[in-house]
């Protein structure tokens, strides 16, 4: 009898543990990068995805906002220590930290956005087909341009930014094969991301040469691009998040990088037990990149332009058009 009770107790205990395990299955955490979660840009995009996940599932997500570079690794370690089952890192600056912490905590799942070169059995990496999104806004630029000349201002001169530039040129040339695309990089050091004065000068130089639409992929430097275009009565194209509202009427559209999709997908997969390590690439087909249309730019986007962009999107989806990825061979064929 006592033996039976003991067995019963053990059985109930085991069952309770299993139920407990099923309920406390997922404990997600996110480590935002410098700028904080309301930065009207990258981090805020991630936050939108996290918010959507929490609203749909009721599962709270632990959060940390990094305010200096040394905190990245500590923050991830602390999340793992506090029992997080899945930790999401934001941005390529966190790559080193997540690689190290993922090795230290092999039982915890990790995921990072904008990194594609790491390799760990418990790490998922998200990269975006920025060239496809840039292609779409390139089509918009060529449709909006009256001079047949458009511009591109990049931040730091790295292959990732050339990938934006190349896709953009492809989009422009698909509409107007004779179009001229002026391209400028702001610099070769990280300060190139935060130099709006230089961004404005580069934009003015392109406008002086006849450009009337300028696309930027330059972070904070892009504020100068948008400002210079607005001052000159020309059009700018925003990047990463929806920047149409920065200078309504002067921002033609924005190339959206849907980091919220990556954040939402990470946590949803973890919740449903579908988490897998490896590289995930989000393009037009996956809803990872897009162009922005809202009240701020509705008057700038003509029906023809909209149709042309939607056709370009359909062509990319159907495989009729393959946008060249600069990073694949360090070359731009357009």
């Amino acid at each position: 009898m006592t033996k039976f009770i003991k067995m019963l107790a053990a059985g109930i205990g085991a069952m309770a543990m299993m139920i407990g395990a099923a309920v406390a299955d997922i404990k997600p955490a996110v480590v935002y990068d410098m700028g904080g979660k309301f930065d009207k840009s990258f981090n805020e995009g991630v936050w939108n995805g996290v918010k959507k996940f929490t609203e749909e599932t009721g599962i709270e997500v632990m959060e940390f906002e990094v305010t200096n570079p040394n905190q990245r690794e500590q923050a991830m370690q602390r999340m793992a220590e506090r029992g997080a089952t899945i930790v999401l890192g934001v941005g390529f600056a966190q790559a080193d930290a997540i690689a190290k912490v993922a090795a230290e905590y092999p039982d915890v799942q990790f995921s990072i956005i904008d990194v594609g070169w790491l390799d760990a059995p418990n790490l998922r990496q998200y990269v975006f087909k920025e060239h496809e999104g840039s292609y779409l806004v390139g089509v918009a630029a060529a449709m909006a341009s009256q001079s047949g000349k458009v511009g591109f201002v990049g931040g730091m001169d790295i292959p990732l930014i050339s990938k934006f530039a190349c896709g953009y040129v492809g989009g422009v040339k698909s509409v107007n094969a004779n179009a001229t695309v002026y391209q400028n990089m702001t610099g070769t050091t990280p300060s190139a991301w935060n130099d709006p004065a230089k961004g404005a000068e580069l934009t003015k130089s392109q406008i002086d040469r006849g450009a009337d639409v300028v696309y930027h992929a330059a972070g904070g430097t892009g504020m100068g691009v948008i400002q210079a275009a607005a001052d000159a009565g020309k059009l700018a194209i925003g990047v990463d998040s929806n920047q149409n509202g920065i200078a309504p009427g002067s921002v033609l559209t924005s190339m959206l990088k849907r980091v919220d999709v990556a954040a939402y997908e990470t946590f949803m997969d973890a919740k449903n037990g579908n988490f897998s390590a490896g590289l995930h690439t989000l393009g037009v087909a996956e809803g990872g990149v897009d162009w922005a249309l809202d009240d701020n730019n509705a008057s700038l986007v003509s029906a023809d332009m909209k149709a042309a962009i939607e056709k370009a999107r359909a062509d990319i989806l159907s495989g009729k058009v393959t946008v060249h990825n600069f990073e694949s061979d360090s070359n731009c064929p357009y």
Partner: protein
Amino acid sequence: MEGLWLQFLLTIDATLRVATPLILCAMAGIFSERSGIIDISLEGKMLMSAFAAASVAAVTGQPWLALLVAIGVSVFLSLIHGFACITHRGNQVVSGLAINILASGLTVTLGIAFFAQGGQTPFLKGDQRFSPITLPFADTLRDIPFLGPIYAEVISGHNIIVWIALLAVVVTSLVMMRTRFGLRLRAVGEKPEAVDTAGISVVLMRYQAVLIAGVLCGIAGAYLSIAHGAGFVREMTAGKGYIALAAMIFGNWRPLQALYACLMFGFLDAVAARVQGLELPLIGEVSSDLILALPYVLTVIFLAGFIGRATPPASIGVPYVKER
């Protein structure tokens, strides 16, 4: 030909715009260093006042008020610098560096706290900034061949701070070389004992110098965020304070020569922006790496070949001790 001439003029126009913060900071540096106080905190003061100007302009919409607040913030930092190195005879480089680090961190932290946009301030609209001033007859005179575009493109269409910067050079030059105050200021930087013997307070002279430097840096910061730019972005000074410092040393601590050095840096920057990716006759497309490196390469060449020995004020960096 006509088009090429216009492109050249537009480059000169851009040179003035790019050089303006450098000129203001270089003049600030001249005042401070001629009095014997090393000022590597030009960068930090400029950054802090850029943030202050953008914040005030965003909230109140008053560019002139924003300029005043920017000057106030910069002067305050100058006073901290003065307090550390004049009153307490601290290390001037360390104090300057501390101000730079303080500005770099504090602007972003305050920016996130005030506006919650990742350290940026809101984008400023037209009347919240100093807009370009088109001089009279600019449009009518534009059509005069050759000379018309000079007036319309190069001279007209700058915002008020560009003019303030050029005026600052004239005033600095006159004050330094033609007034009693300037003579005393230079003497304080060369041989403070002599000035003290003559019954003039070294401490007071040096405080006055760093105060003037603060005012000029404040104007430079406001130029970046509310005149040339339209809002604050973290670290937006991007090393301009240090370039101004280099220009000042190029110019041998003299206002006019420093102005030329600033214009040279500005010109190289403006050319780099325009030549990048351009097909040039005979040479073909210039590599963007080369263009981006050009200002630094030329700096080394100029420094080694043309400038010769730079002679700093004799007592620079040495705190004045009246009595042991």
